[in-house]
């Protein structure tokens, strides 16, 4: 098992290295000077030269990359091109905000997605199955920004029951955090509940017809126990992969949701940096976001072994 974990860890580090090369080369893809693009045409040559030296852009490309990585390993992502803000501090303040929205989304989508998946599979062919499956089919095609706007229109502007923008940290006031985050979390969860429902339903349908489930029923085990203890346990294995992959999409979706609900997270920071072409922030955001997704995939791989003894065996 130790060998497998080390191999998987090495692979994750390699992926992060490749992402870092991509993030770094973003600034060098376009011909032209990133400093000039960021500061505008009216800035004097001296200022540009001064900035180039300050950000090591006057050095050879490989050396620039080396300095950048060295800084990151020391926990220093550099400074914002436009405002001179410390990028590490920015990330440190924004990342917890994105996580405070993202973690409930993962939990809520997993819970409801699995629940709806089981219900639709068990009640296959009934009106409940048809209703939930149709909503789930539509749910995967609904753009996050549109569902957010619809919710703002309905709950914020028509019914006046939920706030339409803003954010409070859970550590400041937990009650207010729940109240403020309810709408963004629900909007972000909608599509994922749909995806997980579909996946759980099709896995459950496959498992439910297998011999061991029939045997369990024949042995007089209560139906609830057959579904949850015997069938669901096996149906969940592919669902875990889907949930792992969803983390990546949830982080992506946070860009949209944070923008609409005016939440000061890493997604909103990234959009600001992209529109202002502040490359050092873009690089840092891309790297940190992929660290989160690669980390999650690593954990999911290990979870596989926990839930499936066959996988654990293959690690040896």
């Amino acid at each position, binding site marked *: 098992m130790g060998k497998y974990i080390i191999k998987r860890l090495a*692979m994750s580090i*390699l*992926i*992060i290295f*490749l*992402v870092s090369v*991509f993030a770094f080369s*973003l*600034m060098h*893809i*376009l011909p032209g000077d990133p400093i000039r693009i960021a500061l505008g045409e009216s800035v004097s040559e001296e200022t540009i030269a001064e900035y180039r030296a300050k950000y090591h852009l006057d050095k050879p490309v490989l050396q620039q990359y080396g300095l950048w990585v060295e800084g990151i390993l020391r926990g220093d992502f550099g400074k914002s091109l436009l405002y001179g803000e410390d990028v590490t501090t920015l990330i440190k303040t924004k990342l917890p905000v994105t996580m405070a929205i993202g973690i409930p989304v993962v939990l809520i989508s997993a819970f409801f997605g699995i629940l709806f998946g089981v219900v639709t599979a068990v009640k296959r062919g009934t009106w409940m199955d048809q209703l939930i499956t*149709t909503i789930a*089919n*539509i749910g*995967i*095609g*609904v*753009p*996050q*920004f*549109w569902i957010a*706007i*619809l919710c*703002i*229109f309905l709950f914020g*502007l028509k019914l006046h029951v939920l706030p339409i923008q803003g954010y409070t940290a859970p550590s400041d006031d937990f009650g207010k955090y729940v109240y403020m985050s309810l709408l963004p979390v629900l909007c972000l969860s909608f599509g994922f509940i749909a995806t997980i429902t579909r996946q759980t339903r*099709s896995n459950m349908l*496959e498992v439910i017809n297998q011999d061991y489930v029939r045997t369990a029923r024949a042995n007089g085990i209560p139906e609830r126990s057959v579904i949850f203890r015997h069938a669901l346990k096996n149906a969940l294995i592919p669902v875990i992969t889907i949930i792992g992959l969803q983390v*990546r*999409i949830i*982080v*992506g*979706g946070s*860009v*949209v949701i944070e*923008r609409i609900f005016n939440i000061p997270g890493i997604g909103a920071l*990234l*959009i600001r940096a*992209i*529109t202002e*072409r502040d490359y050092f922030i*873009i690089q840092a*955001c*891309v790297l940190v*976001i*992929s660290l989160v*997704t*690669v980390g999650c*995939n690593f954990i999911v791989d290990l979870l596989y072994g926990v839930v499936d003894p066959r996988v654990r065996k293959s690690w040896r």
Partner: protein
Amino acid sequence: MKRKIKVFFNRGILSEICFAIVVLLIFVAIFAPLLAPCDPNVNDLRNVVKGVSSEHLLGTDYLGRDVMSRILYGARISLYTSILAGAFSAVLGILLGLAAGYFGGVLNQVIMRLTDAILAIPALIFTLVLASALGGGVLSIVISIGVSLVPTYIRMVNGQVLSIKESDYVTAGKLIGLKNVKILLRHLLPNCFPSLIVLFTMNLGQGIMLEATMSYLGVGIAPPTATWGAMVSDGYSFLTTAPLLSILPGVCIILVVVAFNVVGDGLRDALDPRLRGKL
């Protein structure tokens, strides 16, 4: 062939509706200039945010532009960018997937690890960042959406090639001295066609969604070009007075994305039912 068409259309009313939506989208995209009642980019500042009227069937937006015409032209942009991005990613992904699967070894490792690296960055963030680095505009949007979709093709083609490259007919081809390129393109690639058609259809929906989201965030195709994403965004300020401005283009996006997904499902069942659960 007849059986396949039968399977495709025998999946219920939803399948048929979705197929009709796709056909309608293609029709509207091609004939938008003939169907649109007005020029989608002509401002009429005396008639801003007006409701439904005989002159403007779906009303006007904040610059007095005809919403109906903008939705029709928006269909054109959506389909155009997603088809181009889809074709770009398919060609690149097929070539890389074939090479990775067939030649194996170091080449396989390099291509597959690059694929993992692209997949480590959320697709939306990848396209946003790459499009902005490439300088915006339709071409950079097409390339960035295309590159973000490439991993799906590489993984699929690589998997299929790995499973069939040890087949007797491939070995026989090698023995009679066929060139690698010929084995790849004439003998291995056709085996991937059913899955490729399904993946391409589903990716069209994904491409439309990415383009709409980018336009919504203001990083997509520049105004005043009519795009559904930008229309939702423009209408947001008038949510209390004219909610349809935002809601209608959103409904178009949903219909089209769901339609492509369902048609993709139908094609999968008709062309290769074994792919169920994989695509």
